[in-house]
């Protein structure tokens, strides 16, 4: 701390704690070996395609549709998760009811349950002859083997991201803020919508971004329930796998590069909005 003024010159501030070199050495070697070299391989291979080849692969109709489906369903699923995730977090933080502990623990199930298992379980439920699907089939509602099925799988996968980012911030909310709002004549609905929810906006946005990013890349839980019809219910990660099986490495590389670029830009935008709303409102953080 005292050395902060002198630290302008130094790579690191002096400290009596040993092991910096070893720890950073291990960290950087492992990071470079496992993450950076493989990822830069992808960047190098896609740049080696050349602009015209890349453009042709990127604008291929099947690719465009797959990307649209992946990003579209992930967006819708993240929106659904924001609504129900905030309700769920609210109920878990504010109310007492039997089985609350179990529900709280269950929220993490999508983190712990392998995606392939989630995929076949959801398909069993929502297929036209499944537990819930058979109830909906007479009404003409089809969930599995349509883009709605993809949304359902992504809702499952993304739920804990929203709940677990919003929940700790909700726990931090000071009761006095609500009391002040009530004193000033706000009714309960006004207090929640004008005072509490805006303050939660940064956390909700973070949860949305995490659920969305996870949904875009999700593969295991989706491929069983999606039906995988090209142009209609084929997600981008599946198209990468299909191109790889055809040994069409350039196409697989191009789709992967586009996915990474779009995700990166979207996360950048969301980070900016989040920084803005954190300055504007924002609890804790």
């Amino acid at each position, binding site marked *: 701390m005292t050395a902060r003024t002198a630290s302008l010159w130094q790579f690191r501030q002096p400290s009596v704690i040993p092991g910096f070199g070893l720890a950073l050495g291990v960290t950087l070697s492992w990071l470079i070996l496992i993450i950076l070299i493989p990822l830069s391989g992808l960047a190098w291979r896609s740049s080696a395609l050349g602009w015209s080849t890349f453009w042709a692969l990127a604008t291929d109709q099947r690719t465009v549709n797959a990307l649209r489906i992946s990003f579209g369903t992930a967006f819708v699923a993240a929106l659904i998760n924001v609504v129900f995730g905030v309700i769920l977090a609210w109920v878990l933080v504010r109310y007492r009811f039997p089985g609350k502990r179990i529900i709280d623990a269950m929220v993490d199930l999508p983190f712990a349950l392998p*995606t392939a298992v989630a995929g076949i379980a959801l398909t069993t439920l929502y297929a036209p002859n499944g537990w819930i699907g058979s109830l909906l089939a007479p009404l003409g509602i089809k969930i599995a083997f349509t883009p709605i099925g993809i949304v359902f799988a992504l809702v499952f996968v993304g739920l804990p991201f929203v709940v677990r980012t919003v929940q700790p911030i909700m726990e931090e909310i000071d009761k006095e803020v609500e009391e002040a709002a009530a004193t000033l004549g706000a009714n309960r609905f006004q207090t929640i919508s004008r005072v509490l929810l805006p303050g939660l906006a940064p956390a909700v946005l973070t949860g949305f971004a995490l659920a969305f990013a996870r949904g875009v890349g999700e593969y295991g839980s989706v491929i069983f329930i999606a039906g995988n019809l090209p142009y209609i219910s084929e997600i981008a990660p599946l198209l990468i796998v299909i191109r790889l099986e055809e040994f069409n490495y350039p196409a697989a590389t191009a789709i992967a590069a586009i996915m990474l670029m779009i995700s990166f830009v979207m996360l950048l935008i969301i980070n900016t909005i989040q920084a803005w709303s954190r300055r504007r409102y924002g609890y804790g953080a």
Partner: protein
Amino acid sequence: MAHDGATTAGTGNTELVRVATSEHRMARYTLIGLALCFVGLFLVLPLAAVFTEAFRNGPGEFLTVLSDPETFAAIELTLLVAVIAVPLNLVFGIAAAWAIAKFEFKGKAFLTTLIDLPFSVSPVISGLVFILLFGSHSLLGPWLQHHGVQILFAVPGIVLATIFVTFPFVARELIPLMQEQGTSDEEAALSLGASGWQTFWYVTLPNIKWGLLYGVLLCNARAMGEFGAVSVVSGHIRGLTNTMPLQVEILYNEYNFVAAFAVATLLALLALVTLVLKSLLEMKYSEQIAASRRH
């Protein structure tokens, strides 16, 4: 008398505050109902479906299916992959957390972002990068082939892809926790003459053990359950390169539903054990791992 009046006024106020800062009973029940329906529909029912479908034809068939040698090989491979990937990421996670939490240096925020990178990469792309690196069309491919080293469509590729995907788990749990704990304990130990390793073993490690266990638990669950990345590099060779999740997929696609769900049951049990241990850790040592829940 006056005392009594004050008390009544006091309770009256608390009552007013309670009414003003909580929802109407109907609203409360509606919200709880909505939350429970959502959890039931998306979390409880899928889990119930796994177990019901696995035991559809009774426990006899369930056991027959599980004693299949291919399934057995898949279980063995899954355990092997986790036994290699988790300890490696554990060592990395501790090293990364030590460097990032205990020191101030340039580029720390950037390093933290890089560590989180695998979380924002699709599992399929995590597999693809290794195909591009070691495949027959790559720079390394021909050299590896010449020397008879098999990485793709073999155990090393599966292990590498799993390490890639589970890379941030331990580090991510430990960094906020160790940042919150600061360096004063270590400084005290060092000033009393402990060596660096002694300080780590006897001071830091006991401080972070529950957070560490928590991270390992999540890392292990993901390592054993990873599907997308492993699917791309495995080559799906039966009895050789199929992990349990891949075995589930193959059996399911062959319409062998009971077998698929039987293997899925084992993975679901793993998930349940993970959740129970996680909840126990959170209940007992919440203050020691609370930091990590605030991303």
